[in-house]
C-alpha cells in the first residue's frame, strides 16, 4: 500500500491516520521486527523505521538511548533495510526515517534502489532540507519513493511553500520547537502551523509529530491534522513494558482517533 492510499483510507473512515515510529535494531534486530509487526497488528496506519545514528541532534533522551543501544548491539544500515523488508508485507506503508550522513555514505542512489527493493515506500529526512537535496530528489524520482521533508513553527510561508512543493506522500509538521519526546500537553503552535501548511499543501496530507503519548492527545491532534505521528511514547512503552505495553499503547492511540 502506498502512503497516500493509507491516508485516504483513514480519511474515508473519518479519522486521522496513526503513524508509529520505532528504531530498527531495538532492542535487537529480531525483536525490533517483532515490535513493528505488533504495532501494525494493533492499528498503526503507517510505519516509520528509524535508522540509528551516532549523532541524533533532533532526538530527545528516549530515542537517543534506544538508538545508542541499537548501535552498541551492532546494528548496520543493511539491518535497517532488512527490517523494512521483513515488515513491508504486512499491509501498511513502511518509511525509513534517517539522518542524512548514513544515506550519503551508503550512496544516495544505491540506498533509494535498495529501499525500493525492500518494499519501502519512502524516506523521512529530519536534517535534510530540499535546498540541499538535489541527489535525493533525483533518486526518489527514479525509484518512485515518497520523500517527506519537515516544516516547523519557525518556517516562513515561503519556506513552507517550497518544502511542500518537494514533498511526496505527506508533509511532516514538527509541532513544537524542540527535540523528540513525549510531552504532557501538546503544542498550541500546532493547529496554527497545520493551517499554514494546509494553505500551501493542497491535497497533500499533513502529519503532526513531537510529543503525543496518549489516545486523548492523539484525538486532540487528529482533530486538525491528517496524521498523528508518535515516536518516543512507543519507544518508552517497548523499552519499559515490552510487546504487551507496546500493543496497549498503540491500541489506545488508535482508539483515540476512532472515537
Amino acid at each position: 500500500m502506498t502512503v497516500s492510499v493509507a491516508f485516504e483510507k483513514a480519511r474515508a473512515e473519518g479519522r486521522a491516520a496513526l503513524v508509529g515510529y520505532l528504531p530498527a535494531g531495538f532492542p535487537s534486530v529480531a525483536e525490533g521486527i517483532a515490535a513493528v509487526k505488533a504495532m501494525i497488528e494493533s492499528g498503526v496506519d503507517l510505519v516509520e523505521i528509524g535508522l540509528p545514528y551516532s549523532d541524533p541532534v533532533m532526538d530527545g533522551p528516549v530515542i537517543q538511548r534506544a538508538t545508542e543501544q541499537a548501535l552498541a548491539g551492532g546494528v548496520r544500515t543493511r539491518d535497517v533495510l532488512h527490517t523494512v523488508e521483513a515488515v513491508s508485507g504486512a499491509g501498511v506503508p513502511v518509511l525509513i526515517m534517517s539522518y542524512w550522513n548514513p544515506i550519503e555514505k551508503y550512496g544516495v542512489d544505491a540506498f533509494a534502489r535498495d529501499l525500493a527493493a525492500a518494499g519501502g515506500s519512502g524516506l523521512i529526512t529530519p536534517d535534510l532540507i530540499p535546498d540541499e537535496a538535489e541527489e535525493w530528489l533525483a533518486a526518489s524520482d527514479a525509484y518512485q519513493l515518497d520523500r517527506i521533508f519537515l516544516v516547523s513553527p519557525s518556517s516562513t510561508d515561503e519556506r513552507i511553500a517550497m518544502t511542500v512543493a518537494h514533498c511526496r506522500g505527506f508533509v511532516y509538521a514538527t509541532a513544537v520547537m524542540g527535540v523528540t519526546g513525549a510531552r504532557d500537553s501538546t503544542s498550541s503552535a500546532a493547529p496554527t502551523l497545520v493551517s499554514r501548511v494546509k494553505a500551501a499543501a493542497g491535497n497533500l496530507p499533513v502529519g503532526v509529530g513531537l510529543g503525543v503519548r496518549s489516545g486523548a492527545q492523539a484525538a486532540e491532534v487528529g482533530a486538525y491534522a491528517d496524521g498523528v505521528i508518535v515516536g518516543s511514547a512507543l519507544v518508552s512503552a517497548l523499552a519499559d513494558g515490552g510487546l504487551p505495553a507496546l500493543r496497549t499503547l498503540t491500541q489506545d492511540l488508535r482508539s483515540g482517533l476512532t472515537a
Partner: protein
Amino acid sequence: MLPDDRGHFGPYGGRFVPEALIAALDELDAHYRKAMADPEFTGEFERMLREYAGTPSLLYDATHLSAHVGDVRILLKREDLNHTGAHKVRNVLGQALLTKRMGKGRVIAETGAGQHGVASATAAAYLDLECVVYMGEVDTKRQALNVARMKMLGATVIPVTTGSRTLKDAINEALRDWVTNVDDTHYLLGTAAGPHPFPAMVRDFVRGIGVEARAQCLALTGALPDAVAACVGGGSNAIGMFHAFVPDESVRLYGFEAGGDGIETGRHAASITGGSHGVLHGSRSYLLQDEDGQTIESHSISAGLDYPSVGPEHAWLHDQGRARYQPVTDAEAMDAFALLCRTEGIIPAIESAHALAGMLREIPALRAELGHEPTVIVNLSGRGDKDMHTAGEYFGLFDSGEVIG
C-alpha cells in the same frame, strides 16, 4: 568570493540541519552581513579586541629557536598573549557582540577541554549575557579547573551524558538546546564549522590573525613569508591565519591535523588526511566515520584538536591544492612543545605545538623547494598553562598522583 549565498565552498559547507533552525540561521546571516558593513559594529568590535583582548598580538622573531633549527627564520604569531590565552577570544567577542545586536540575551556554547567554554563565559560576563556551556561528562572530569573558571565567570556548565560524552556530544546537546530556545538564544559555536553562516562568520571574526601577521611580516622583513602554518582542529585559528594569505600565491599554507598515535593506528583526529567525505554537525566536509557513516571518535593528546570533522573551507582549500594538510603525531607535538619551552621560554598550547612540529618537519623540504633560507610564520594559537597536567604526566614531572585538575 566563497562561500556562495547558501554557504557552499564548492561541494562543501551548506546547511544540514533541521528545518526548525533555518529561520534562525537566516536571521543570523542577515544580521552578520549587516553588522560587518556597519562601521559602528566593526568599530566596536575592533575597540574590544584592542582594549580588552590585547590585539594586535605580537609577531615575534624567534631568533633562539631559529638558530637552534638553523637556516630558517621562524616568526611566531603570539595569539597566546591574548586575553584568555588563545585566538578564540576574537571569535567569542564577535559573536557575543552580534548576539547583543540581535537583541538576544542568552548564549550557549559547546566545549571540549574548556577553552571555548571559558572564552564564551568571559565574553558573556563582559557583555552581560546569560551563558550556558555544554561539556561532555568525561571532559568535565578531565578539566575540573576550566569548569571552575566558567563558574567563576557566571556561566552554567551542563555535563553531557549521552553518546561518547565528549565534544561532539556537547555540540549535539547545544544544537538540541538551540532548536528549543532559538527565540532568545544564540549558539556561540567555537570553530569555523557547522551550518552556514558559521564557517564564514567565524572566519571573518578571526581573520585579523592573518591580516595582522601579513602586515607585521612586511614591516619586519620587508617581504611576505614563504609559508604560514597553523594547527587544524575545527579550523578556526588556521582559517584566521590563512585567509589574508590565500591570494598571495607565493605563500605556502600548511595546516597540521592531530595525528594522535599515527594515522595508521586509527587513533587520531586527522579528518582531512585520515577521513572521508560526509556530513556532520550541519555541514558537508571531511570527517572520521565508519563504513555506515557513523561518526568515529577521534583521539589526540590535545583536547582542542580532538574533533572528528573540520570546517568546510579547509576541505575546499585542500581539494584546490591551495593549502597543504598533514598529520602530526602526539609524540612529534610534545617534542616541539618541549623545544619551544627550552629555546624561547614560551610554553605553547599543545594544539599550537602541532603547528610548530609540523612546520619544523617541513622546513628541510621547503628550503630545498625554495633554494634559499625560508621565512615562516607559525600561529601560536594559545598558551600552555591549561596543558600542564597533560605535559606533566607526559614528561613524568609529577610524583605519583600529586596533582589533580
